[in-house]
């Protein structure tokens, strides 16, 4: 403790110091519970998954058999299903979300800006299970009658569109996921575009750029890291999404190149099987899937944070340089 102000000052504050110390201790304890919970979850997953990790080793990640009777477990189809459904969602959502963000920040008339932004963000407020329900009773019939037939007529020769379409499929899950992650990507991108200094737009326009050229060649490049961050954030959401995907993806433990065929994701497998897992090894296998999913989503989210953070810092540095 610094003794600069003199001894009598230190004693006169000592009574208040105790209260201060208690207060600080309590707050520190509260603040530490959250990281502690994270570590507890990770520890619990590891502990419970350990029998599976020890029995199957790395092969767990690459094998595609899932046989509770023979007690052989491999998660490859679920891992692949999670990745494919999420990437499909990004493929659909990113252009749409960027379009919304660019329209709202650069081209929209003032009166339209607020309502459209709020409505898009409202998509994030719809419960997952409602998306699932809508998917089963509206999206899948629509796909079956209006989307898949022309798609197969045009692109049926590609392996991605082979086989009979029954409804529940990777395609249906990807589309529903894309709608669910769209608000996240578009609202973060919008923030990023709004943070691009007007001087950048003016510089481009004054050099003879059209509005669109200014967006494309000056505004987007300026904010590209933040937009990548927004996309990765959306990816993180898609990877872990459970309910709607479980209702739509078909839950078949198989690897198929065709998007029209059913698949499985890690999240869906856990949700479907935890109640029926009677043997210790089955449960441990589910926990190991949980561990993989945890690892993937934490990594993806950390990457997104890092990118968005670098943009925020980068623009601060840019403005200081001026």
């Amino acid at each position: 403790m610094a003794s600069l102000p003199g001894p009598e000052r230190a004693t006169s504050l000592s009574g208040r110091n105790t209260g201060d110390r208690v207060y600080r201790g309590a707050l520190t304890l509260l603040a530490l519970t959250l990281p502690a919970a994270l570590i507890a979850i990770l520890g619990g997953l590891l502990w419970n998954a350990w029998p599976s990790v020890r029995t199957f080793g790395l092969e767990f990640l690459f094998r595609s058999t899932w046989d509770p009777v023979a007690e052989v477990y491999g998660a490859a189809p679920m891992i692949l299903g999670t990745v494919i459904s999420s990437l499909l969602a990004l493929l659909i959502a990113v252009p749409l979300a960027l379009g919304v963000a660019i329209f709202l920040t650069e081209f929209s008339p003032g009166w339209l800006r607020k309502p459209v932004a709020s409505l898009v963000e409202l998509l994030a407020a719809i419960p997952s299970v409602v998306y699932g329900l809508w998917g089963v009773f509206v999206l899948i019939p629509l796909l079956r009658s209006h989307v898949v037939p022309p798609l197969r007529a045009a692109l049926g020769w590609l392996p991605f569109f082979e086989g009979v379409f029954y409804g529940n499929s990777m395609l249906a899950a990807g589309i529903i996921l894309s709608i669910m992650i769209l608000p996240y990507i578009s609202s973060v991108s919008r923030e990023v575009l709004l943070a691009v200094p007007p001087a950048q737009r003016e510089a481009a326009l004054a050099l003879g750029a059209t509005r669109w050229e200014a967006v494309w060649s000056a505004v987007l490049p300026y904010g590209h890291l933040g937009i990548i961050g927004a996309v990765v954030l959306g990816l993180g959401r898609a990877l872990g999404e459970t309910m709607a995907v479980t209702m739509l993806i078909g839950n078949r433990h198989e690897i198929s190149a065709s998007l029209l065929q059913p698949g499985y994701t890690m999240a869906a497998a856990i949700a479907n099987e935890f109640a029926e897992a009677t043997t210790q090894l089955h449960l441990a296998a589910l926990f190991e899937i949980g561990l993989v999913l945890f690892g993937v989503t934490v990594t993806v989210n950390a990457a997104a944070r890092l990118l968005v953070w670098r943009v925020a810092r980068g623009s601060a540095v840019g403005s200081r340089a001026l």
Partner: protein
Amino acid sequence: MTSAATAPSSASGSGAASDAVSIREFDFWYGSNQALHRVSLDVPARAVTGLIGPSGCGKSTLLRSINRMNQLIADTRHRGEILLFGRSIFEPGTDLVDLRRRVGMVFQRPNPFPKSIFDNVAYGPRLNHLGRRDELTHRVEEALKRAALWEEVKDRLDEPGTALSGGQQQRLCIARALANEPRVLLLDEPCSALDPIATQRVEELLVELKEQYTIIIVTHNLQQASRIADFTAFLYLGELVEHGRTEQLFTRPRDERTEAYLTGRFG
């Protein structure tokens, strides 16, 4: 309608004595707030014209009207005429892209793109498809030389433009404008964010550039206007109070408001 009256001044075309920009009875409004009142000003080619006046007098508004940057702001309107080498910039069918290529602009704060030095200068030529691809390198070099920046950056053209010092960034922005081969260069307080040495370099540069370009510069700094401007226009409350040769305006102002401003009694 006013173009008939201006025909004589534009007839000689490239003649050194002709006016590059003629502003006729120009009014400008932001919403219901009138920022410019019947401003008429002839800007001679290949000379530096300074626009001075207290904050909010309409200098920047006038400057930004010449390349029609003001129309990006919602709810603005204008009345009157601005002629660029004898042709109205408000003529229906005027190509804004072409107008802004011919009338370059440099802003108050340096605003290089977060791209390499090369790509910053090449931005305009690429956008406007000027010249052949293989000439681009030459064009960039030429623009950087004219902006007196070449010697400082020739070995690091692939480094980001944002890594340069403030004064270098501003000269980079001037090079970026010059690469478009403009005929008129508008500068909006280009030195207000620069230190005295960087300011001096930019001023020297502008004096060199007036051999080839028509330069209009808004400045808060009266010394700067007296150092580099051949002609000076004084604006006050949206009106053009006085306009003439710099030395005449500074030494023998005709209007008492000009005199008051020059002697520091307001602004």
